[in-house]
C-alpha cells in the first residue's frame, strides 16, 4: 500500500538525515570534543583505558582517540596533511625526536601562551626535576613529557643459563657483554644478540663514548672521534657474527620465539614482548663503554597541543591534569613507560632496570633541528644502516652523514 508523503514530513526527514553532516560535531552534545592522535594499536592499550577513565569522570570534555599510524614519523606526516586541510589534531603524541619540527613546522602550541605561566608551572611541577627540562623544545614548553623510555637489554634467561652464564650477571659495559653473548651463541646455537637499527640506539653508543649526534647549538657532530668510537662499538657484534641485522618487527618476532639470546630495545616495548615470550625474561640496564661515564638517552613522546581553539585547549589541559594524577599515571604505566612524575607509584615488575637507569640520569633523545628535520632523521638512519651493513666504514659513513645533514639544516 502506497502512502503519500507530505511536504512537511519530507522536510523533517531530510533535515534529520542531513543534521549529522551539516551541524558541527560540538553541537551534537554539550561536551567539548578533543581528539587525541596517537600511534598505539589495540582496544586494550592503556591509552584507551586512560581516555575512558577520563571521559567517565564527566568533566565536560570528551577526548576522542584517533590512531593515525604506527610510527612517530607516520602520524607526524598525517598530522601535517590534516593541519594543511584545516582539520589538524587537537592533541598528538609527538615523538621527542620531532620536537623541533613540531614546534616550527606543525605549530605545536607554547603551553605558557595557551594555559598561562601559572597553570603551565603547575602541570610541569608534577614531573620529576630531571625530566622537566626535557619538556621544553628550544626553551619553549610545548609538551607534557608523559611517555619516557630508555634502551635496555632484554635477556632470554632460559638461553642465558643454558649457556652456563651466571643467571644474575649484569654486564656493565659492552666489553663485558660481547664475550657473554659469544658464549651464549656458541653453547646454544641461537643468535646471540640483536640491536635495533635506527637513530635511537646508536645515539646511546655515541653518547656513552663521549660524543653527541647534534650539539647544543643544533649542529650535527656525529662524526667526532668519540662518536666514531661509539659506533665502532655498536657495529662490532655484527662484524663478529654475533648479530644478524633485521628490522625491528623481525627482531621482536624472533626474540619472542626464543631465537635470540639478547635484544637491545626500548623499555616501553616490554608489554608487547612479554605477551608472546614463553621463556624467562630479564631486563637489565643498557651497558656503557669501558672506562667512560655512562650517558644513556631517553626517548618516547610528549603530548602536544595543536588546536588553536580556546575550548579545546582548555579541554586538553583538563585531560593533562588527569593524566599526570596518580590515578591516570598508574594506568599509563601499564605501557612500560617510566614513572617520570612525582606520584608515589610502586615500580611495576620488570621495569626496575629501566627505572634505575632513569634515576641515574638520562639525556634527551636527539631532536632533529630545522624545518627539514624529518628528512634529516631519515638520512641519518640511512647512513647508520649503511655502516651497519658494512657498505661504508664508520668514519666515512659518519662524515657523509654529517655533510648531508648540514645541507638539510641549512636548506
Amino acid at each position, binding site marked *: 500500500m502506497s502512502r503519500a508523503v507530505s511536504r512537511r514530513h519530507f522536510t523533517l526527514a531530510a533535515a534529520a538525515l542531513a543534521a549529522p553532516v551539516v551541524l558541527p560535531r560540538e553541537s551534537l552534545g554539550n561536551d567539548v570534543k578533543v581528539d587525541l592522535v596517537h600511534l598505539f594499536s589495540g582496544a586494550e592499550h592503556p591509552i584507551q583505558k586512560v581516555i575512558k577513565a577520563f571521559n567517565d569522570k564527566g568533566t565536560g570534555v570528551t577526548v576522542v582517540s584517533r590512531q593515525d599510524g604506527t610510527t612517530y614519523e607516520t602520524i607526524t606526516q598525517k598530522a601535517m596533511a590534516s593541519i594543511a586541510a584545516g582539520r589538524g589534531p587537537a592533541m598528538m603524541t609527538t615523538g621527542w625526536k620531532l620536537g623541533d619540527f613540531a614546534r616550527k613546522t606543525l605549530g605545536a602550541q607554547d603551553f605558557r601562551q595557551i594555559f598561562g605561566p601559572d597553570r603551565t608551572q603547575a602541570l610541569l611541577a608534577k614531573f620529576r626535576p630531571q625530566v622537566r627540562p626535557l619538556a621544553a623544545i628550544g626553551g619553549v614548553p610545548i609538551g607534557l613529557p608523559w611517555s619516557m623510555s630508555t634502551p635496555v637489554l632484554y635477556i632470554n634467561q632460559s638461553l642465558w643459563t643454558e649457556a652456563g652464564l651466571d643467571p644474575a650477571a649484569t654486564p656493565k659495559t659492552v666489553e663485558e657483554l660481547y664475550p657473554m653473548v659469544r658464549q651464549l651463541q656458541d653453547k646454544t646455537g641461537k643468535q646471540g644478540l640483536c640491536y635495533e637499527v635506527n637513530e635511537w640506539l646508536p645515539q646511546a653508543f655515541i653518547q656513552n663514548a663521549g660524543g653527541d649526534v647534534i650539539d647544543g647549538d643544533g649542529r650535527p657532530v656525529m662524526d667526532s672521534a668519540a662518536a666514531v668510537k661509539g659506533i665502532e662499538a655498536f657495529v662490532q657484534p655484527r662484524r663478529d657474527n654475533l648479530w644478524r*641485522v*633485521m628490522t625491528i618487527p*623481525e627482531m621482536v618476532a624472533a626474540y619472542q620465539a626464543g*631465537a635470540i639470546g639478547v635484544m637491545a630495545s626500548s623499555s616501553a616495548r616490554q608489554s608487547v614482548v612479554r605477551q608472546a615470550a614463553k621463556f624467562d625474561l630479564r631486563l637489565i640496564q643498557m651497558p656503557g663503554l669501558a672506562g667512560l661515564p655512562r650517558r644513556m638517552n631517553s626517548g618516547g613522546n610528549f603530548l602536544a597541543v595543536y588546536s588553536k581553539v580556546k575550548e579545546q585547549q582548555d579541554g586538553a589541559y583538563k585531560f593533562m591534569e588527569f593524566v599526570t594524577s596518580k590515578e591516570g599515571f598508574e594506568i599509563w604505566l601499564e605501557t612500560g613507560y617510566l614513572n617520570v612524575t612525582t606520584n608515589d607509584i610502586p615500580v611495576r615488575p620488570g621495569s626496575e632496570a629501566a627505572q634505575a637507569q632513569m634515576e641515574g640520569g638520562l639525556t634527551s633523545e636527539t631532536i632533529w633541528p630545522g624545518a627539514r628535520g624529518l628528512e634529516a632523521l*631519515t638520512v641519518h638512519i640511512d647512513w647508520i644502516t*649503511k655502516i651497519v651493513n658494512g657498505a661504508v666504514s664508520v668514519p666515512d659513513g659518519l662524515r657523509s652523514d654529517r655533510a648531508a645533514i648540514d645541507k638539510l639544516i641549512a636548506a
Partner: protein
Amino acid sequence: MTTAWRGAWRRLAGSPWLFAGPAVAAAILFVWLPMASTLGLSFFDWSLLRQEATWRGLDHYRGTLANPDFHLALVNTGVYLAALLPLQVGIPLVLAFALVRVKAKATGRLYRTALFAPSVLSFPVAAVVWLWLFNPTVGFLNTLGGAVGLPPQRWLTDPDIAIWSVIIVAFWKSFGLNLLIFLAALANVPTDVTEAARIDGASPLRQAIDIELPLISPALFFAVVTTIIVVLDEIVGAVDVLTEGGPYRTSSNLLYFLYERGFRHFQFGEAAAVAVLIAAIVAGVTWAQFRFGERHVHYD
C-alpha cells in the same frame, strides 16, 4: 522560447560537443588541469602549511637529476621491469597453456582458483604472511634453506637481496591477473583451427606456438602494457609494506621516490619535478611499446 534561442538549441543539439562535453570537461578537470598544476608546481617551493610559493626555476629538475637516490630509484625501476615483465607475462602464459589442457573440470577450477587467489589480497594482508616467511631467524624460507644446507638470508635487510624479495612478493601477488587474461583469450581460440592442426599432426607445442599464440597476441600485448603499468605503479604497495624502500633506498623505485619526496618530506616542488620526469619516462616507454610491440599483434 524565442526563435533565436530555438535556433541556438537546435545547433547545440546537433553538435558533437553536447555528447563529448561532459567527458572533455572531466578530462580537463581531473587529468589536464592537475598535470598542468604539477608542471607549474615543479618550478616552485611550496609550503603546505603556509600555502606560500617561492620561485625556484629549474632548480628542482637539476637537483633531482643530480640526486644519487633518484639515480638508484631509476636503476631499480629498470631492475623491477626487467625481472617482473618476463615473470608476470611468461609464467602465466605457460601456465595458461597448461591449464587449458587440463581435462578434468574440477581440477582445472581448483588450479585456477589457487593461482588467482593471491591477486585478490591487498598488499598489507599479503605482507603479514610474507613478513613471517622472510624472518631471517625464525622464518619459513630460511628454515627450508637451512634444511638443505643453505646459509640464512636477510631477505628484507640485505641491500643485495631486498629488491629481489619485493620482486618475489610482487610476482606472487600479481601474476594471477595475467593468467586470467590468457585463459580467457585461449578459451576464445576457435576449436576448428586447433582441431585441424591436430589432425594434420601438429604437436601440442607446435599448436601453442604457431596457432594459439598468434591468435591471442592482442591479449598478450594488453598484458604487457598493463604489466608495465603495474610494475611502474602498483609495486609501490609491496615496497612500502615490505622494505619502505630500504635498506638505504636499495629497493626503492621512481614512484616510491616521488612518494617520499612529496608525502614523507613534504617537498612538493621537488616531488612535482620528479612526477614530470616520471611522466616523460613513461611516455617514452609507452611510445616504444606501441612502436615496436604492436607490429607483432594480429587483430584478425
